[in-house]
């Protein structure tokens, strides 16, 4: 069948194009995030909003204890400050540090080259996409993720997580992942899709603020920002510029080292797209 053979050659062409130097170069958008750790109170609202928006299954105490939880966004709590050493010996005089951690959508994502079936790859929107129904569950990507933000469906969680009529509350814009599939934060790709459809309906380009991720929307202190880095006028690209943090670097040489912006595991050259702003402390 000619269409078949056509696909074969086209497939090869697309493949080699998409993989020259390991990824796209014709990005249409570059969605990125910034999180102000000085404003984050660790209240978990983002995490729960993610559960509600993305059909995340709750797993119960036993499986959670076996570290098989499905939280795409987790708020990590640390009691130490490495750059000033431990706090006072017997009391946490500086309180705790909270760190919302989700998929960083690295431009140099270690998970992408190792997926045997290309179920995870970089889209032209700069997202690190995960195609659930292409995934065969080799879990190589999760092994290769330094931040461990990829969640694998170790069980068929749906029946226990959404007993009727709870399934009526599922978000129809996201498929419910079944067992054996890897899943992770998508920067609320369904909201991105919806916003761009809406923009097309109104015959205009996407503008800053059209896309609001669930965590950003609900964050009570507005610590989370989201936007398109390729759009010079967007808040997020201004923020990145102000913080003098650039993509594609494994080491930022800032003119003003006192700017708070930094990215986690920069030294691994994974080129994460979530900008964290340092926590501020009185001395």
């Amino acid at each position, binding site marked *: 069948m000619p*269409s078949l053979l056509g*696909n074969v050659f086209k497939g090869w062409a697309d493949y080699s194009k998409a993989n020259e130097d390991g990824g796209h170069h014709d990005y249409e958008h570059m969605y990125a995030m910034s999180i102000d750790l000085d404003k984050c109170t660790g209240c978990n609202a983002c995490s729960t909003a993610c559960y509600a928006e993305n059909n995340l299954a709750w797993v119960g105490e036993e499986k959670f204890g076996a570290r098989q939880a499905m939280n795409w966004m987790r708020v990590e709590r640390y009691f130490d400050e490495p750059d000033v050493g431990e706090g006072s010996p017997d009391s946490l005089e500086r309180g705790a540090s909270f760190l919302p951690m989700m998929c960083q959508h690295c431009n140099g994502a270690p998970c992408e080259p190792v997926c045997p079936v290309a179920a995870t790859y970089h889209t*032209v929107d700069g997202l690190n*996409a995960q195609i659930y*129904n*292409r995934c065969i569950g080799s879990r190589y990507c999760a092994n290769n993720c330094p931040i461990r933000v990829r969640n694998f469906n170790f069980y068929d969680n749906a029946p226990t997580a959404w007993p009727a009529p709870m399934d009526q509350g599922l978000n129809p814009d996201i498929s419910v992942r079944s067992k054996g599939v890897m899943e992770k934060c998508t920067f609320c790709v*369904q909201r991105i*899709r919806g916003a761009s*459809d809406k923009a097309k309906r109104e015959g205009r380009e996407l503008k800053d603020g059209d896309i609001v991720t669930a965590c950003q929307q609900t964050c009570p202190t507005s610590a989370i920002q989201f936007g398109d880095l390729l759009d010079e006028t967007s808040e997020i690209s201004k923020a990145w510029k102000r913080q003098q943090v650039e993509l594609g670097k494994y080491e930022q040489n800032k003119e003003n080292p006192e700017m708070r912006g930094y990215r986690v595991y920069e030294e691994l050259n994974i080129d994460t797209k979530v900008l964290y702003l340092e926590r501020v402390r009185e001395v």
Partner: protein
Amino acid sequence: MSADRPQHKSFPWIRTFIGTAVIGALIVLGAQVFEQQLHPVAPGEAPAPRVPGADFPMDTFDGKDVPQPINYSHKLHAGDLGINCLYCHTYARRSKVAGIPPTAKCMGCHTVVADDKPEIQKLTAMWQKGESPAWNKVNDTPDFVHFSHERHLQKFLLNNEDMNIEDAPDVCAMCHGDMNTVGVAKKMKPLTMGFCVTCHEKNNGPADCTRCHK
């Protein structure tokens, strides 16, 4: 080895390599056959749609007859009476789902038109009771697929200066076949990923997985 050996033609080890090649070919072909069973695509005889600037796969699909609570005939309404698709499936141009027309729309005509037909009386009874018929879905995409009727209509119909709204049936026919010819709705196109991908390639649709997979 001495020189006075007689020469020999037979190279039995060649067989082994031919064998390997054959096995490999069998694997590929077998996988293909399996794939074909997953996505039955019959060679198409469907009429080419009169959609300027659209080139679409000719594959057809011989869907089975799906019983419906009310034997609604597309042939009668769309074909003979020439009612525009978008008159009833009005959501298609505004939403990703085309949707079933609300009963009120049917009653708009059928309070007076053909209200003696048993099927219509069935409908009227439901309308009186305030319940809606439970239609069986005919053209269904899997739950992990994001398909927007709105976007496709915009591309091929609404934003296509060569088309006006009367040509809607030609656009719909690209994926639903010529509904003017069938009675109760049937699936007339495979609607498999291959079907979508082929059309996307021919019409420069997005090739990005996340655009269609959710």
